[in-house]
């Protein structure tokens, strides 16, 4: 029988966090033995696909971000641990997989984020902000994502949490916070979460209007970058949505460039590690046919959005680092967002909590060993190398029965809990997962399956509990497309409509 997922956690760590929470700032003598010399700036660009992020490079053009990209270390094969925000951001902020941190899970046979409130990060799991705070860093988060205000555990360890909407305000509040603490003697951790690519394409009318305003050349350029088959018909709803999404993503790139310029102007990049990541991608009918054939999405539409499958358009995400001592590099080693926390702590010279057996690995060494050669886009970057046989996992379906995936040795296995079905893909040859391969022809099939079996066993038998949520927070989450069927008062977590009535953005 499986052991409970979190029994390996000890209260001792939490106690030590409490014990040294604020004291370092008040008295130098109380400064912990471990402390950071560098600042950390994390930038989350919610809902950005790997391939969409690189549209300027893919179309041989440039934008304000292009120059920053050349100076960064690009982890070009980064896999998210989950296809939607709560479990994925929880992974970034805890260094644990969803089964271990417990965030964003559903105790239901068929998850439905429209109707059920997902679980929060387990209280026993320390967060990155708590760890950095415990070594004396000042911490602040500015987020456009309402989940940050919903007691999911994201807020833990941050001295300040500011909720702002729109890239401009997120950036502005972040910079104001920096300016206000410019004279502090202690390093800081600033977390900025941008939502600009998340939901603009959900509003079809507005999307259509925006696309109609595009000039023809721009529209043609973006159409050429669309995943098949979204723009087979350039007037199709899915193509309009994609074009709006691409436009929003490009605009977000500009916003991030602006942020980096402002940080640079303040000298903040000289003593900071800057990490940019996306928590998950977005599907534009990339796997519509397969999803429709399985027909397990409780909303009744298939292959659009995120949270409903584990295909690469939702898992392959940007991850970029700017480190003052390391120039532009292209690091093709496959990594997971579960590696982000160990890598950051590695760079900053801070140990991981000993009580926890972290599944991630620091990629700091891999980055440093890599020859200096700036990342240049090519379709090759979609392919995962055969040579790397470390196992990277993903799970955490928000709409439908649970699925789990493992990527290793260039292969990927997606396992469907509801019917024990398996899909194998060769990501070295078929990175867009067009054609599943027969598992019997994959030499590593049993190894991948056994690895997923071990990952499965990390799920505890404990209940994954949703937090108490105020009506205000429920309303704000509804505003960005979540919890559409959850009543704001009365019996929450109960089904209130029968599913067929769900419209979301309508059948896209």
């Amino acid at each position, binding site marked *: 029988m*499986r052991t409970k997922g979190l029994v390996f956690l000890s209260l001792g760590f939490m106690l030590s966090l409490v014990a040294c929470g604020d004291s370092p700032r008040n008295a130098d003598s109380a400064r912990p033995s471990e402390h950071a010399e560098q600042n950390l700036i994390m930038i989350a660009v919610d809902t950005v696909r790997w391939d969409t992020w690189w549209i300027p490079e893919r179309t041989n053009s440039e934008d304000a971000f292009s120059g920053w990209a050349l100076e960064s270390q690009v982890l070009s094969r980064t896999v998210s641990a989950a296809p939607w925000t709560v479990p994925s951001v929880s992974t970034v902020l805890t260094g644990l997989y969803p089964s271990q941190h417990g965030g964003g899970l559903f*105790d239901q046979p068929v998850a439905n984020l429209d109707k059920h409130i997902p679980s929060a990060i387990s209280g026993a799991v320390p967060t990155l902000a708590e760890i950095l705070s415990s070594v004396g860093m000042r911490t602040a988060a500015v987020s456009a994502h309402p989940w940050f205000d919903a007691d999911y555990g994201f807020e833990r360890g941050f001295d300040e949490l500011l909720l702002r909407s729109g890239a401009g305000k997120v950036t502005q509040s972040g910079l104001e916070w920096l300016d206000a603490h410019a004279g502090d003697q202690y390093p800081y951790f600033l977390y900025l979460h941008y939502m600009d690519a998340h939901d603009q394409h959900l509003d079809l009318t507005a999307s259509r209007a925006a696309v109609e305003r595009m000039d023809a050349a721009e529209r043609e350029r973006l159409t050429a970058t669309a995943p098949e088959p979204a723009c087979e018909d350039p007037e199709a709803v899915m193509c309009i949505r994609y074009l709006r999404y691409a436009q929003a993503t490009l605009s977000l790139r500009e916003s991030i460039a602006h942020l980096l310029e402002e940080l640079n102007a303040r000298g903040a990049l000289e003593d900071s590690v800057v990490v940019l990541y996306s928590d998950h991608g977005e599907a534009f009918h990339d796997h519509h046919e397969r999803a429709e054939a399985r027909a397990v999405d409780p909303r009744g539409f298939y292959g659009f959005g995120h949270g409903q499958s584990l295909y690469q358009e939702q898992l392959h995400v940007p991850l970029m680092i700017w480190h003052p001592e390391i120039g532009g590099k292209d690091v093709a080693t496959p990594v997971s967002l579960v590696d982000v926390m160990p890598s950051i702590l590695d760079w900053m010279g801070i140990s991981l909590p000993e009580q926890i057996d972290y599944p991630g690995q620091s990629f700091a060494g891999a980055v440093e060993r890599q020859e200096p050669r700036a990342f240049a886009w090519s379709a090759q970057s979609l392919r995962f190398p055969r040579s790397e046989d470390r196992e990277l996992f993903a799970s955490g379906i928000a709409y439908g029965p649970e699925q789990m995936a493992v990527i290793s040795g260039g292969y990927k296995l997606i396992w469907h809990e509801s019917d*024990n079905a398996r899909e194998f893909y060769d990501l070295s040859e078929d990175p867009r997962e067009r054609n599943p391969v027969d598992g019997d022809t994959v030499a590593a099939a*049993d190894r991948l399956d*056994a690895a997923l*079996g071990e990952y499965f066993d990390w799920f505890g038998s404990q209940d994954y509990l949703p937090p108490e949520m105020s009506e205000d927070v429920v309303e704000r989450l509804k505003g960005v497309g979540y919890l559409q069927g959850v009543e704001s008062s009365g019996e929450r977590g109960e089904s209130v409509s029968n599913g067929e009535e769900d419209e979301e953005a309508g059948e896209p």
Partner: protein
Amino acid sequence: MFQLRDLRRRAALCAAALGVVALVGCGGEPEAVDSRVVVLGFDGMDPVLARRWMDEGKMPHFSRLAAEGHFQELGTSNPPQSPVAWSSFATGKGPGEHGIFDFLRRNPETYTPNFSISENIPPDRFIKLFGLQVPLGSGEVINRRQGEAFWVKAERDEGARASVLRIPVTYPPDDIHRMLSGMGVPDLLGTQGTYTYYTTTRLGDAGSSTRTVRVRPDRQGRIESDFEGPPDPLLESGEPMRVPLVIEPAEAGARVRLGDDEVALEPGEWSDWIRVAFDVTGPVSVTGTVRLLLVQGYPSPRLYVSPIQIDPENPAVEIASPSGYAAELVEDIGLFHTIGMPEETWSLNEEHISDAAWLEMEKTILAEREAMWYETLDKNDSELVVGAFVQTDRVTHMFYRGLDEQHPRHEDTAPEHRDEVEWIYREADRILGETMDRLGPDDRLIVISDHGFAPFRKAVHLNRWLVDNGYLVLEDGATESDVVFSNVDWSRSRAYALGLNGLFLNLAGREGQGIVAADEVAALKAELSAGLAEWADSQTGEPVVRRVFDGEEAYRGPERGDAPDLVVGYHRGYRASWQTTLGAIPKPLMEPNRQKWSGDHCIDPALVPGVLFSNFTPEVAISGIRDVWQLTRRQIREDES
């Protein structure tokens, strides 16, 4: 067939004994009894339903008994719950004297509920050795029921040998001629019935009676897991003992290997008994017995494993008197369910198993009970024979929805399962016929039930009513509470509900954080009673509560201190919610009962009397179940004289 085996076994025993010492009575049949008093209980048999089916000719033996002897309604206990009523039956006393007021008893210090019927007192002395804790002495199990059962008194005062089978609240067994304990006997985990459910897909929340194990088949469909037994008593860590469990695809369903046993099952098929041996650290092992049900087959198999029964051939605790009696029974009738409440009903309520699978289990249990009942009657070596069939109660609880067209679950009860209550009454009639066939001309037969039945259409969150009316106060910011009043602010709370009918004041000096002063009690009880009497169902306008009883008036005797301050007698159709019984406070005040547990009786006792039949006319007026004690005593004494 078991009778033949029985004779053969007895012959062998006698032959062995004769080799050592001549034994009285071994020469022939056991000494026959001239006349007996036979008391047969059908738990939950309702007089209205019985009369209906008697009138329709569906219960001919009951009709004959009523025509040739006696039939009347039998008042039940207050509250009308089986453990309370059967305790009154056994002792002839009320709850104030026998001390059983509910399925649950509360600890006023902590407001926590506990099982009321029996209590396991662990050994308090251990030596700790090499990381192991070795118990010194074996601990103790006590029956919390006070007072003397009539079978004990009959043996002592009249010298009447008594055989008592599966009467509720008889655990641990009394030291009498022959007893097999009933309700109160735990499973091997020490609970009242915890099943294990292996599933490859996630389930919604399940109650505490369930151990859900999520498992994942490998590419060949093979599932490797463990089956957990009780904690290793020698290990300080409390780690459970385990046996390996493997599920593999098989042609028609699945092959399951549990410990050393392997069985192939089709979907919906039950296994025979499987004996599971849990190895305690060191050379000892504890055995229990389980049955497996393959709920569904591949690609997403689900396997149900019954609560682990105390192995009657190697009982971990005494469940019978004399202690070898359970093992003797196995020789005669094969392995059987030993847990006090043999029908594990929660799996059906949670819809983890189907109506058909549950009924299949019920038929097995009924056959076991019949076999041991007839064996006892056929032995004819006891002046007093007492036995109860609880199957009437369990089937009625789970299938009232078929009978009750107004029940929220009536429509989706399959037509073939709508008449299961009638089926179990017909079965009771058949068992009565078999029993009457086995009686001698001078044998006196008393047939009783402990209570009747009513529909359970709406679940009443009584604690929510107390919150809404200001008697129970949640902590600041909390809108609901989990079990055991997790979010209650006791410093501002004056009353709380716990158990199926109990309402308690938060009394200063009695409750752990009591605030109600002694001189406020009478007024507060009056206020609560009046408020509850006015409570109307907002959907129908019907009253929810029919009568509220003052515990001080309702109960007399030394155990009265444990009694609820008020006992809530709900109206027909209403019952305390499961959440209320355990001190949880969800948001709604009342909910339609959408569970399969669709009939109940924990309401105003006047609405749910039981039945009394006898093959003679009682000499005295019998009004309630506690009078059966007098009636039985009188028959025994007549036999004696």
